[in-house]
């Protein structure tokens, strides 16, 4: 994958609907052949941005480039950015075949060429048997594939997907998710995906742009988004997180000691410059993922410099592959996921747990 070449450049784009600011100076570079996800809560502007790329909304301010070409005023169908809609938007008055070939027929392509393209596309998606039915006669999962076929048959430069899986049931969603990623890797189409589902974003994307209130809050790989969120919004929107508020007690060349609820917590930051950034007395927020915390086999004290703390289990739920505990400690409530737990009932018992100092992320202030 030529991940370096910029395929789509979004430059300082704004959009307002009436008085609401839907997009507020958004800038983003999207690499050719990459799978990029716009992730955020509803109303964050992700769909607006996607629709603007598709050419449904005019760019009020700022620029959109495809390669070197400025596309602000290029109409939707000349951008070769084809969209799969959340509600699929299959034309109910046409058969599946007519739906898929619609765009090609508009282009007045010859019958043979249309057939060739059609066969190639439906081969990817396994919908050969559906061609003569109408959208009302096929299931949700099949409609989804047909919508994807209708976009892919256009051989788009950029494929735009607007929450395409949100109308499917959970199991189907996971299957199609995997298929979609495989297909995208095979066809190497630059793909932009919009979702509010963080699990979907993490599992599908090369890059994720987390959005909130019309702005891009963070743009990075799924790993970065998950383990190195830039602020509390990203940290708590993507996955479950324990946020610990504390004061820097001391900092040395490789470690920082933070006082949380009166106890010292050792942090080994990934950022080597951390020592210079954080000075004793600074207020900081630490971010720990539930699955990076371990329960100790024996009850131990705390304050031993090994990041082992004591607390009381106040609640727990069994989730199959793991058990989630709520543990009161350091003046807050930790969420801890334990995989492969023992049989022991821990509710209302005191436990010791260890936080790996290298897995603690310091939120930039």
């Amino acid at each position: 994958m030529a991940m370096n070449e910029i395929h789509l450049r979004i430059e300082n784009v704004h959009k307002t609907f009436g008085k609401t600011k839907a997009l507020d100076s958004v800038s983003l570079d999207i690499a050719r052949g990459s799978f990029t996800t716009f992730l955020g809560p509803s109303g964050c502007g992700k769909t607006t941005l996607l629709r603007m790329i598709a050419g449904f909304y005019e760019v009020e301010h700022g620029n959109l480039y495809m390669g070197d070409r400025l596309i602000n005023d290029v109409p939707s169908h000349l951008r070769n950015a084809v969209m799969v809609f959340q509600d699929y938007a299959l034309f109910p008055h046409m058969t599946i075949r007519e739906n898929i070939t619609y765009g090609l027929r508009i282009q007045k392509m010859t019958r043979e060429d249309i057939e060739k393209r059609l066969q190639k596309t439906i081969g990817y998606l396994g919908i050969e048997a559906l061609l003569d039915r109408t959208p009302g006669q096929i299931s949700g999962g099949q409609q989804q594939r047909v919508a994807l076929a209708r976009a892919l048959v256009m051989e788009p430069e950029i494929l735009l997907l607007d929450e395409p899986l949100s109308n499917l049931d959970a199991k189907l969603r996971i299957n199609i998710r995997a298929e979609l990623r495989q297909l995208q890797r095979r066809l190497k189409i630059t793909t932009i995906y919009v979702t509010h589902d963080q699990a979907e974003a993490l599992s599908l994307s090369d890059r994720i742009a987390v959005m909130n209130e019309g702005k891009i809050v963070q743009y990075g790989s799924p790993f970065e988004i998950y383990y190195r969120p830039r602020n509390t919004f990203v940290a708590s929107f993507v996955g479950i997180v324990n946020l610990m508020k504390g004061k820097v007690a001391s900092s040395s060349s490789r470690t920082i000691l933070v006082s949380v609820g009166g106890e010292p917590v050792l942090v080994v930051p990934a950022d080597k410059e951390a020592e210079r950034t954080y000075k004793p007395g600074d207020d900081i927020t630490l971010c720990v993922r539930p699955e990076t915390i371990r329960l100790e086999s024996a009850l131990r004290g705390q304050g031993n410099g090994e990041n082992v703390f004591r607390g009381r289990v106040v609640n727990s739920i069994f989730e199959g592959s793991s058990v989630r505990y709520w543990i009161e400690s350091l003046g807050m409530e930790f969420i801890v996921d334990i995989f492969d737990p023992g049989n022991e009932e821990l509710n209302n018992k005191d436990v010791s747990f260890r936080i790996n100092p290298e897995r603690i992320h310091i939120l930039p202030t």
Partner: protein
Amino acid sequence: MKRIAKEPFLAVVMLFIISCLFLFVIYPIVRVFLYPSGKELITVLSHPRYIKAIFNSLFMVVLSTSSSAFVGFVFAYTIARTDVPLRKYFKLISLLPLFSPPFMVAFSYIMMFGKNGIITAKLLGLSVNIFGWHGLWLAQTIAFFPIAALMMEGVLQSIPPSLEYAGRNLGATGFTLFKTITFPLARPGVAGAALLVSIQVLADFGNPIMISGDFSVVATEAWMRIEGWADVSGAAILSLVLLVPSFSIFLFQRLWVGKKSYVTITGKSTQIDIRRIGSFMRWFLFAFCSVFSLLILLVYLALFMGAFVNGWGFDWTPTLRYVREIFSRSTEVTNSLVFSLLAGGGSALFSMVAAYLVSRKKFFLRRFVDFTCILPTALPGIFLGIGYSIAFTRPPVDLHGTAAIIILSLMFWNIAMGYQTGIGAFQQISPSFHEAASNLGASSMRIFKEIEIPLIKGPFFSAFIVSFIRAITTLSVIVFLATSKNVVATFSIMNLVSDGFYGKAAALTCSLLIIAFLVLGIAKLALGKRFELFKV
């Protein structure tokens, strides 16, 4: 049945509703069917005069429905899907005729374009004969395209915007998009709207009685039968001739077109971002809508002028005498107002209770109630009027010349609108409110009073207003029932126009318009957004 026995009040209400429907909807219909003998039927139907009327009616249905549907669709498309300037005003103007007496258009065009018309004779110096099929065509087009536009706008708006976006995204622009996506999707709804308009054209009595001259249609011939020859059988037969196609179209529309409409498959939708259309198309639509909006405004202009002019066509001196006459001897206006208020209120109340029972209760004859409440939509006003005249103006029930017969006929003629609005409203109110209340121990009556009534206040008042306006503006229903004792304004207007007293007729029409728009304005102020005008 056991549950009903436990709630005697509910049982009484059901019994009341069912009996009323039998007595005031079914019974008059049956009486019309049974009144003429077979011999009379053959005589009338083979008479060349009536064969001609039937042919004329069909001709007008095809002509006026096509033109109304076409103009209506252009309006609807302009309003819903383009950025044509002033489109909001086009919509506003096109709504006006919905709250005006249907015959008003014909009356006004006589004053405007007739032999003594202010435009044709006075301004242009032409001698035009507007009486005939062409005048009728114009009047019906203007009178009925607004309802077509309203329905079709609803149809266009129910097309999920993502379908048009998808079409654009795949390369369809301008007319191609319209031809391949927008129009095919709207077609079933447009056809449905056209069919509903055709029922109205067929049943139209007010416009032809005023403007069609020697060109007779079935509705006017039925009136002549009674007025001229006191031949009730003949009138009954002719009104049956109207009922049969009207009822068939109604059934066809409900059973076939209703099912054919495309429903959104899934998902939420966003408002479509209206695109600039080509400038040729834009100005064409603008000019088109302007012309028809002007034709509507002229209707009102002529009426208001007519009310203040001494002798239309020959003596243009301004006068207030017609207005004064209305205030001094205003039996008709008072009657119209009182009868319509009662009929509108009764109709709204009756239809809401019926809608409640049908949507919330299981009972014997439930489907009968459902069907009979919608049935009046399919009944031409003329037919219902003759039905009431046969059923209730002679023993055992003689209501001849009473207020009651007018009020009852108007009330039951209008239950369909309110009933459908009510059914829609009850469908939106989740039955779980009902279940929750009943789970907490509330009786049916209590649930209705404390849960449902507060939620259907809006639909109730909408039904009341629509019924009231239809009642005060109708002519066809009451034309066989009005006498000098229970005369209403529309009846007087018809007589005044046919005798050539345009000034007083115009003043009376204006007073009706003022009442209708006042009531509408009050309702709009009082109810705001909850006020839904027409459930289509």
